[in-house]
């Protein structure tokens, strides 16, 4: 180890970029370098590269990348659902509802694509596979079935992000999760109001005494989402 460090070739190679004149702006890069370093640690912290266990279960993984994969799994589910809603709209949608779902479909597809890009960049080889949705219990031609499923997914998504924030060790990821969860909450409120105006934050979802939304643990969320995903997911190590 010390031999490598003392080698002049390595010293020169490592330090070279630092010898060019440093502009005031560029040295903030060094202050920001911990984010990159954290990403390196992330990619190095899990010892198995294979997210599929021998029995076919998809492990979401551990640590921060486990939380990111967990979010990625849920966003895959939501994106697939809304894509199907837009592809075969309910025959009894009211005016404006298809336009609404078209926008929500874009938001969720963006969340999915963002996590895919972020995980592949920060933790190469750790991303879970593309999941296969199971929407056999949803009647896409029925407005009521679509709205109720959307409510289930959005409320579940909010509770999932609320419960997972504490497992993130990287502040930047926590902020991203916060930036997404409030959009999910906006979706949840709106679809609830479509079902019955005024239920955006009623006592079925918000505790009337504390004024708090729900927060759920990853295993409980995955247990609820599992009915809509063909692959068996394992969330037991998420955030650990």
């Amino acid at each position: 180890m010390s031999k490598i460090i003392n080698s002049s070739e390595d010293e020169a190679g490592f330090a070279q970029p630092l010898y060019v004149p440093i502009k005031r702006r560029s040295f903030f890069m060094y202050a920001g370098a911990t984010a990159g370093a954290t990403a390196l640690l992330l990619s190095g912290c899990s010892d198995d590269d294979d997210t599929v266990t021998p029995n076919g279960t998809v492990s979401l993984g551990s640590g921060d990348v486990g939380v990111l994969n967990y979010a990625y799994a849920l966003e895959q589910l939501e994106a697939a659902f809304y894509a199907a809603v837009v592809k075969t709209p309910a025959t009894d949608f009211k005016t404006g509802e298809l336009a609404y779902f078209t926008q929500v479909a874009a938001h969720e597809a963006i969340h999915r694509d963002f996590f895919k890009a972020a995980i592949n960049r920060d933790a190469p080889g750790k991303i879970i596979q593309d999941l296969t949705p199971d929407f056999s219990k949803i009647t896409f031609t029925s407005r009521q079935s679509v709205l109720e499923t959307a409510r289930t997914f959005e409320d579940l998504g909010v509770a999932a992000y609320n419960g997972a924030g504490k497992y993130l060790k990287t502040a930047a990821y926590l902020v991203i999760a916060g930036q997404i969860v409030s959009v999910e909450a906006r979706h949840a409120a709106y679809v609830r109001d479509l079902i019955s105006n005024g239920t955006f934050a009623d006592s079925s979802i918000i505790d009337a005494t504390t004024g708090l939304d729900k927060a759920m643990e990853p295993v409980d969320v995955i247990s609820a989402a599992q009915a809509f995903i063909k692959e068996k997911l394992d969330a037991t190590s998420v955030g650990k």
Partner: protein
Amino acid sequence: MNIFRIIEQLSEVDADVLGRFDSRRAVFKTLGETAKKGALAAAPVFVASLFQKAYGQTTKPSVIEVLNYAQTLELLEEDFYAKMIAAGQVPTGAPAAAITLIKQHETAHVKLLDATIKALGGTPVTGIKFKSSVFPADYATQLAYAQALEDTGVRAYKGQAGNLMGAMAGTTNLLQVALQIHSVEARHAAHIRTMRAQPSWIPASDSSLPAPLGPVYTGAIPESNTTQSGVDITKLGAGYSATDAAASFDEILTMAEVTDASRAGGLIGA
């Protein structure tokens, strides 16, 4: 990796570079020890954290400070809705029911934060009121202010998440509690926006609020932002519109931005 060379170069653009470190002697002592232990691989991280400390924005606020900041906003909202109900302009039926429900949540948040701050040995902020001279007389403008307060609240809580990492009150994880309030504020914001015939999310360009409320959506990172964590959202997949890219992520506001007179700071008063 030559730390001395880096600092020398920094001193050319920032004469005060050494003064920014806690103690120059301590820095070099720690560096020397790190090298001795053969842990030079960790040096980049150490150096980065050193510079982060030296050039970082400000010191992190304490948990009590964060909670009192949240309490300030909750008290402001609670008083606003109390004034709105008292003014008697809210139509009966669904509008009145929604405003009453939202007011109940804000009151619940005030009680929860008050108890939490006390449990942590802090002194909860009190007496925060929505400035009477600013309070609008008509229902439509009242709703606009409600939208401003809710969307500001969402941005404000989001901005403090990092400062609550690992914060506990007994066995209660305070970050989780803050997130559980945050998503309720987002639900409120969505409903109020719907009451104003606005999309429930914030599009790339939101000019729906009358002056002087526009700055709710501006800031160091405006709500129109379409780049997240260095990823250009519009270029993901087959490409997305700037409006969808902006709407799919809400943005933070810092404590200083929220309490600025152009935003919530200007709404607090007697």
